[in-house]
């Protein structure tokens, strides 16, 4: 068992499962096989139980030379950050199959094909320790997601899918340039090795901007968020779930994995900017969510707000902040995924996502509203649920560093209570329009809500295990970061003061400089 390639199996099992799908006839059979594959994928994650919680470095490493001439390696590994993200991704695959059971009625085979490829690519992103490998998985996930939206999406799917694809790809082209630049500066594509080096400040600035552009689009942060509501509204339930729960996390994961370790000095330099747009995301997302009539749009904008907390936690550079950011990433994955599934459930009954057409469900769908209430409370960060832990940690971290910043972020929490309670209240107690004929949750729906509900309460009441899983890694990242951002701080001042000295040798990178100021 010791040389079982756990991570390779996790990454490539769904691809292998894809190869089986074309030979199966009948939609029902495909669904059952996909579900079984999803469960098998979950079982393949069992060896991760041997993950040593006290080790801060990478575990389960696999290293094979790939293109030796270019220093490319097939290098996988997992630390506390990736562990949680991978578990989240793997857990969601069977749930996505279940929540699409009756929602997806045409081109079932292709749907599950895309779902499997998505899972593969997402797991790959979180465990890749080679920059090129990371980039490959990062891009590989675009096409299945594009298809999920473009084929099974709503009426505006063409617009939404193209916007998603173009936005994301535009961001990642600069990531490719940054990757090439790091290869020539560091001489390797290996992420752990690149992270161990210190780069000149000017170089760090440009690469930080190039990478941050890609990640900020993916998160999405405030001026780059416009693809998200469109994509969420048009995507089928499973697509929305994957988008919210996994894809958005990749951006934040990128900040943690690349920006902080590779460009520490530039991260410090640009932190005020990042914090400003994080807070803008929190407030803007909250205010816009308040005014939505479409349930999916509301949750989409709430995602922008929640992800604002993640980036805020990351760029405050305290252990509490990082813990909080990772917690919010995980919890947002659980809670928002569940909320999108709930919207999908009610859409199957009322064929509308308008709040006004789904009023007064409390009396007729008690179990549904029960779950809705739980996840809504979790989303607004009610104490005792999982999101509270994350947001509280972020706020503790922020207050410890800059109290007034915390004070600015607090209205975001209030806003989330306002929009979630408004939604919950209308859904539960509004004047029923057509809810009478609806059936409450069936067994299948219970099955996919129950695990998420358990997680909401478990992490809410006992976050200890989760924190223990992430703490060693985050401590390592933070210590490493502090050490090297301080070392670089002295030249940083001189270099930053004379902008020409930075610009002169790197004038070539001009386009990436314009990145953060692009019109929205």
């Amino acid at each position, binding site marked *: 068992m010791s040389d079982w390639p756990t991570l390779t199996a996790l990454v490539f099992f769904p691809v292998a499962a894809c190869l089986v799908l074309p030979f199966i006839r009948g939609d029902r059979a495909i669904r059952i096989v996909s579900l079984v594959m999803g469960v098998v994928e979950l079982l393949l994650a069992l060896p991760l139980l041997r993950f040593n919680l006290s080790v801060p470095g990478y575990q389960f490493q696999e290293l094979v030379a790939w293109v030796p001439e270019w220093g490319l390696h097939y290098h996988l590994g997992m630390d506390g950050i990736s562990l949680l993200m991978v578990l989240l991704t793997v857990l969601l695959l069977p749930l996505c199959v279940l929540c699409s059971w009756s929602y997806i009625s045409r081109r079932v085979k292709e749907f599950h094909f895309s779902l499997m490829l998505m899972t593969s690519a997402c797991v790959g992103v979180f465990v890749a320790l080679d920059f090129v490998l990371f980039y490959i998985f990062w891009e*590989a996930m675009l096409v299945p997601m594009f298809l999920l939206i473009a084929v099974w999406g709503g009426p505006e799917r063409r617009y939404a899918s193209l916007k998603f694809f173009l936005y994301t*790809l*535009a961001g990642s*082209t600069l990531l490719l*340039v940054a990757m090439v630049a790091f*290869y*020539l500066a560091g001489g390797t594509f290996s992420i752990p090795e690149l992270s161990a080096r210190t780069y000149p400040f000017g170089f760090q600035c440009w690469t930080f901007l190039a990478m941050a552009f890609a990640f900020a689009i993916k998160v999405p942060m405030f001026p780059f968020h416009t693809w998200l509501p469109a994509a969420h509204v048009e995507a089928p339930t499973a697509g929305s779930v994957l988008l919210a729960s996994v894809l958005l996390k990749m951006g934040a994961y990128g900040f943690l994995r690349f920006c902080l370790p590779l460009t520490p000095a530039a991260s410090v330099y640009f932190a005020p900017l990042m914090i400003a747009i994080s807070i803008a995301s929190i407030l803007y997302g909250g205010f816009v969510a308040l005014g939505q009539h479409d349930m999916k749009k509301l949750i989409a904008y709430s995602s922008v707000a929640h992800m604002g907390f993640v980036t805020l936690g990351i760029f405050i550079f305290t252990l509490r902040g990082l813990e909080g950011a990772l917690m919010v990433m995980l919890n947002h994955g659980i809670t928002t995924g569940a909320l999108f599934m709930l919207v999908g459930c009610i859409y199957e009954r009322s064929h509308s996502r308008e709040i006004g057409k789904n009023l007064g469900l409390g009396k007729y769908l008690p179990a549904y509203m029960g779950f809705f209430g739980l996840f809504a409370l979790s989303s607004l960060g009610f104490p005792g649920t999982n999101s509270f832990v994350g947001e509280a940690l972020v706020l503790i971290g922020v207050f410890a560093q800059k109290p007034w910043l915390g004070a600015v972020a607090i209205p975001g929490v209030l806003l989330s209570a306002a929009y979630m309670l408004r939604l919950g209240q209308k859904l539960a107690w509004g004047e029923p329009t057509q809810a009478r004929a609806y059936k409450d949750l069936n067994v299948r729906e219970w099955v996919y809500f129950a695990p998420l509900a358990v997680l909401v309460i478990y992490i809410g009441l006992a976050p200890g295990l989760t924190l223990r899983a992430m703490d060693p890694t985050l401590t390592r990242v933070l210590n490493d970061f502090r050490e090297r951002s301080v070392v670089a701080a002295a030249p940083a001042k001189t270099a930053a003061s004379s902008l020409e000295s930075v610009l002169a040798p790197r004038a070539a990178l001009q386009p990436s400089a314009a990145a953060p100021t692009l019109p929205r």
Partner: protein
Amino acid sequence: MEFNVNIFLPELFQLAIVLALFLLSVSPSMKSSAKSAPFSARTAWLPLAACAGLVAAAFSLGAHGTILGEAYQVDALSQFFKFAVALGFAIAVLNASSQPTLEPEKRADYFLLLSLSALGLMCLASAVELITIYLALELSSYSLYALIPLRSREPRAAEAGIKYILFGATATALSLFGLAYILASQHSSYLAALTASPWSWAEAPIGIIGLTLFMAGFFYKLALFPFHFWAPDVYDGASNETAAYAATLPKLGAVVVLIRLAAMLKPGLQVTTVLAILGAVSMTFGNLAALTQQDIKRMLGYSSVAHAGYIMVGLVAASASGLAAAGFYSLIYVLMNLTCFWVICRLSTDGRNLKLNDLDGLYRRAPFLAFVLAVAALALVGLPPTAGFMGKLFLLSAAWNRGYDWLVVVAALNTAISIYYYLNLIRHAYTVEADGETAAPPPDGALWGGVLAGLLLVLGAVPAPVFRWAEAAGRQLMP
């Protein structure tokens, strides 16, 4: 003098094919028994022979030597490109073997010209003397001039042929003019001697002008801006199968010569900067122009202009890895473009030009071809996990820190522009439903299409073995 047949085995084999086709096309039985013998059967052996040519090229991959008084050099670079030409030729022949717009009695002539053109390209790969290069180029060009108009029931084919000849003649004239200048200024037509000569404006102004003009002939073949005007029109007018050939293999010939010429240059030279600017303009213009195209072949025409620009990225790096990356990318480019054309040729059962709308609902009619098309489109964008990504990655890595970082950024941003129109192929094939009932294409082409798509994916996953050849070629030029 020791004579080793292995040195020019690929050319010899190709010549044998040419001769056989020549005999076939002039044999009287071919003309008289028009009704008795099915013509398609007469050339049925050709795909097999072309595949055998591929084996021959693979055999002589390691060959080294010079013949014809130092004018013809067989080395790692030439053998890599000969292999690429043989591969492209085999695919093009397979692709063209059931051509709906070609009269049966012209089949032998058609393939004669096709293989003659490929022979010219193979010679081009080995030519290391300017006049030899010119002759080899003309051998491949003249055959192609005659090929373009060979499309029945299509007046635009003649127009395309004339455009191709006129533009080609102009480019060739420029090229010859440049050759004269180089001879006058550097007193040699051998690349080995020219490498030692100075190539800066201060030292050899006439030589620089000559070199630039000489390169123009190859820019024309490569469809690099501003020599690209023929590409969309010729692709549009020529039959799908001819366009598949014209879009791919001649580029190989141009790239190999440009690689040899680029090996003489260093970054920072004026010529190199001109190349970099042309590359940047070419990729930007090609991608922007392709955005609005509705005709798939025109779109691919502009896409080839953009790809010519990408290849320049490797050439201006002027390092072993840059030249290797350019060689590798051109091989990948041939593969992905031929894959794309393969699907187009299979779908266009009556030989007409396809519009984007003709792809609607392809996933239902021909799921496998739709998949092949998707792989080819993603490779052309340069998205992982296809070989197109690896090619682009090598190009960008090679050019970074060689003084042309801005070119790398432009190339990367161009990927973002180009995604829209390549994605259109996938969007029409997968997400748009066909309006009426459209007949499914015959399933016979799916197998080879699958092989091509598989090649693109495999080269994306394990590029190392093929790249190693390309790198050996690059190192030998620039140790």
